[in-house]
């Protein structure tokens, strides 16, 4: 069930919102828990039992960690319990996300060595596993560090992990950020209205921009696969994908934040005008913010951060971005993408190019960052190094102009969405549209809110009319 599907929009969401508002405060978290488990079961079926079981193990481990921490001389036990929890979570993630990839690599190695391999695995990847695994790990570590108290009630932890607005695509939340809201959700009309505006804004970004641009990117990469791509179309495809990814992902975060506000809790921001970045370091403070901070707090800083000298810092950056890469997907292309970004961050540190906020040569910097990020998205989207290499070759070695490979998908609406999306990301400003809508004051913010609400019926029309595949003759 995606947020823009008719089932979610017209059945699930209003039912959950109304049930939460109408229920007594004490019952609300049970409604949220039931809805969250139902939402997740919709996507992963029986795997929800694995999530529930693993979460209950984490709850028990956290209780043990908390108890061991308070006992003098028992920090070792706390550490072992933490390690057990980390192993449990990473083993789950490793199995479901990486076992298939690993088995294929072992098989290829065996073939290359002229041996017969053990065979390949095909493990189904449950949606959202990367997100909630990180959240469970953050809970265990935060308890170990004393940043948050271990919850007595397992339902608190279960609700935290399964909370449906962010279970599939984030933002990655820390329990300490929403624990009070989850215990006794108390939505207010003011917060709910702000959430409604935010949700409308996200839905419009998703169905009116991201979904309209997606066919262009798909066609470009399909043409690359078929060997029919030309230079012009390759650049259009890369721009289209860069915009599609941003609008799709940030829209999801907007909708998640909006839903949270309607239900009485506030999720953290996840995007802050990433395509306005003036350096790659700045980019990673604006793009998928909650993921960056997770890696900063749970990997980079524990490894020593930038306190161990230059080479240790570079090592830590590479480790973090290698992990960032493979977190996004099990494949060499994702690793390459992660290391590509890590290399740029290293270079910025080395050359003193790190910059944030108001700096000189802002336009040139923004253009440079945009280009670097855009080129990185090519290998990210290609999902194979070979295809990415072909795509880059087409981009940089002139092979014909024209848009013939994309003719079928360059509709007026798609072009308008591409142009509108480009304008939005290139506009000056320090605050994301979503934050402007929820935090802004003044006429501009008011007009933006009105605009988001006015566009809502159109967005709902587009959502309701998706997946329409009629037949010429009646199907008996």
């Amino acid at each position: 069930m995606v947020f823009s599907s008719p089932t979610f929009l017209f059945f699930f969401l209003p039912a959950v919102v109304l049930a939460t508002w109408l229920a007594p405060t004490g019952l609300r978290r049970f409604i949220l828990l039931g809805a969250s488990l139902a939402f997740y079961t919709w996507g992963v079926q029986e795997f929800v039992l694995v999530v529930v079981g693993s979460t209950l193990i984490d709850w028990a481990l956290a209780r043990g960690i908390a108890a061991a921490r308070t006992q003098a001389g028992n920090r070792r036990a706390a550490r072992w319990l933490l390690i057990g929890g980390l192993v449990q979570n990473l083993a789950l993630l490793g199995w479901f996300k990486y076992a298939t990839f690993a088995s294929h690599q072992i098989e290829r190695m065996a073939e290359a060595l002229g041996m017969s391999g053990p065979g390949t695995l095909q493990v189904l990847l449950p949606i959202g596993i990367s997100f909630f695994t990180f959240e469970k790990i953050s809970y265990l570590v935060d308890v170990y560090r004393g940043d948050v108290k271990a919850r007595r009630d397992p339902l608190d932890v279960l609700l935290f992990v399964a909370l449906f607005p962010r279970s599939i695509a984030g933002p990655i939340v820390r329990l300490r950020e929403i624990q009070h809201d989850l215990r006794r959700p108390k939505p207010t009309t003011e917060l709910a209205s702000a959430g409604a505006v935010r949700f409308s804004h996200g839905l419009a970004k998703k169905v009116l921009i991201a979904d309209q641009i997606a066919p262009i990117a798909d066609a470009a990469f399909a043409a690359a696969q078929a060997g029919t791509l030309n230079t012009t179309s390759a650049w259009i495809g890369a721009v289209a994908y860069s915009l599609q990814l941003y609008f799709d992902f940030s829209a999801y975060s907007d909708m998640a934040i909006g839903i949270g506000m309607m239900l009485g809790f506030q999720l953290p921001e996840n995007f802050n005008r990433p395509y306005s970045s003036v350096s790659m370091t700045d980019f990673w403070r604006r793009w998928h913010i909650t993921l960056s901070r997770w890696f900063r707090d749970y990997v980079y800083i524990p490894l020593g951060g930038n306190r161990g000298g230059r080479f240790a810092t570079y090592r830590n950056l590479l480790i973090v971005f290698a992990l960032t890469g493979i977190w996004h997907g099990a494949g060499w292309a994702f690793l390459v993408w992660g290391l590509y970004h890590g290399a740029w961050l290293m270079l910025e540190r080395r050359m003193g190019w790190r910059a944030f906020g108001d700096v000189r040569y802002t336009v040139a910097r923004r253009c440079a960052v945009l280009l670097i990020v855009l080129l990185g998205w090519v290998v990210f989207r290609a999902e194979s190094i070979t295809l990415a290499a072909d795509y880059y070759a087409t981009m940089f070695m002139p092979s014909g102009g024209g848009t013939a490979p994309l003719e079928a998908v360059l509709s007026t609406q798609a072009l308008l969405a591409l142009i509108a999306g480009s304008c939005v990301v290139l506009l000056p400003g320090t605050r994301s549209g979503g934050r402007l809508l929820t935090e802004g004051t003044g006429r501009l913010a008011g007009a933006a809110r009105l605009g988001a609400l006015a566009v809502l019926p159109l967005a709902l029309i587009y959502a309701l009319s998706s997946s329409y595949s009629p037949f010429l003759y009646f199907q008996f």
Partner: protein
Amino acid sequence: MRRFIRNAPFAWLLLLLVLPSIAWLAGARQPLIGNTPKAEFPAASVRALGHKETFDQIDTTLLDRIPFREKALEARGRIGVQLFRDSTSPDVHLGDDGWLFYLPELATCDAVQMQQAPDALEIMAGAIIASGRNAAIAVAGSKMIAERELLGDEPAGLDCVAALEAPVHDRLGRTRGGVDIQGALDRQQRLGRRVFLPYDTHWNAIGRLTFATEILNAIKPGLAEQAGLGLAPAEVEEQSDLGRFLGIPLENEFRPVRAARTPPSPGKVLMVGDSQLDAAFSGPSADGITVGERVLPEQPRCHPLAFGRGECDDALRGAQHVVIETVARDLPALVDSCWRVVSLVGENVRGAAGRWQSVDPAAARGTRHLRMTATAAPLAVTLPGGPVSRHARLVRIPVRHLPPSTASGSQAAALAIDPGSGVHPPCVTPQQPVVGGALFIPLPPGAKAGELRFTVTAPAGTLLGPPEEIVLDGKPAVR
């Protein structure tokens, strides 16, 4: 007032989200859209929750029932088509002056069966006539070819499709039992008349009248005049099929074909065809009686899908006139199923006996009968009419004896053309389980019988009679 303004966004969102549910409770129901029956909720069980298909089906079922979806599709269609001049369907091309075209018409470009289509049509017509019946085989050409000047930006593949369809129409015009509908429609277009409806895949009044006239006269010369075929004075309205793809309700307005009287029955007529046949013979009428009901009352009709499943075999056997119509984009499917026509009408067809030849030089040559062994062997035939003929021919292989059925299933003789054969004809009978029945291998005009190589697989002891040659020269060849 301030409180109202503060709460309005939340109320607005909730109102829009619950509106369909409120409408449903008030009795609003979604009509059938998209030509698909509505999905049903899956059976409720805990076990079902373990399958992704269960949730997909719930999604589909809810989507099929949510009120306002039709309106949403229409709104989106109008925004796309009328505001942006974009087709909102991957199957519809927007032409000039609001004309709509069906893009799957271009799919035949990739269909290997199109190369065999002219031969297949000639063979079917010839086989039907050889069986003592009358044939009327017609192919409705693509609208994109017929109304090409209204396409605007021409989609890729159009020249390819035109090059594939032209030989089909040409062959039908030169084949006894073929009806060159395209030629008749071309004559109308040379008089400055359109033959298709602007928003539809079907012919307009002129096209339908032309088709109905040609078909009735092919059944029996002068039948159209006897029936007083013409156009009704008043127009009727009909929802367009291509508008549905865009989500926009577009109406066709045209004068329907009508028959003034019921002529003497020409005999049993079986009509196999899809929507163009339906449009002309069962389409809207001014007085509630369709052309088919008036001119050919109580005559059997068969959809090509049903025909391919064997549901019309008895009707075919009993027919004196066989009408087969297909649209050009469905020609590949007709080519794939033409063996059924040949095999059924060939039941009472006989020809001069030839001889079996084995491809294996060490084996006995020139035998009349063939007793099958456990091992299938590649075979060839010598035909009495010589290696080549300017007519299409049928090689009839009678199955004289089949061993009794076993516990594992009934026995059958199966036929396959060898990959290395110099002739790869259409309409080959795949298998024959009936003693007294026959396998058929058509030979297109000019095909060299000596280059034909095929394999018959049958249980040991199966006896095949001498291969017979039936020349499809437009004359009956019944026993």
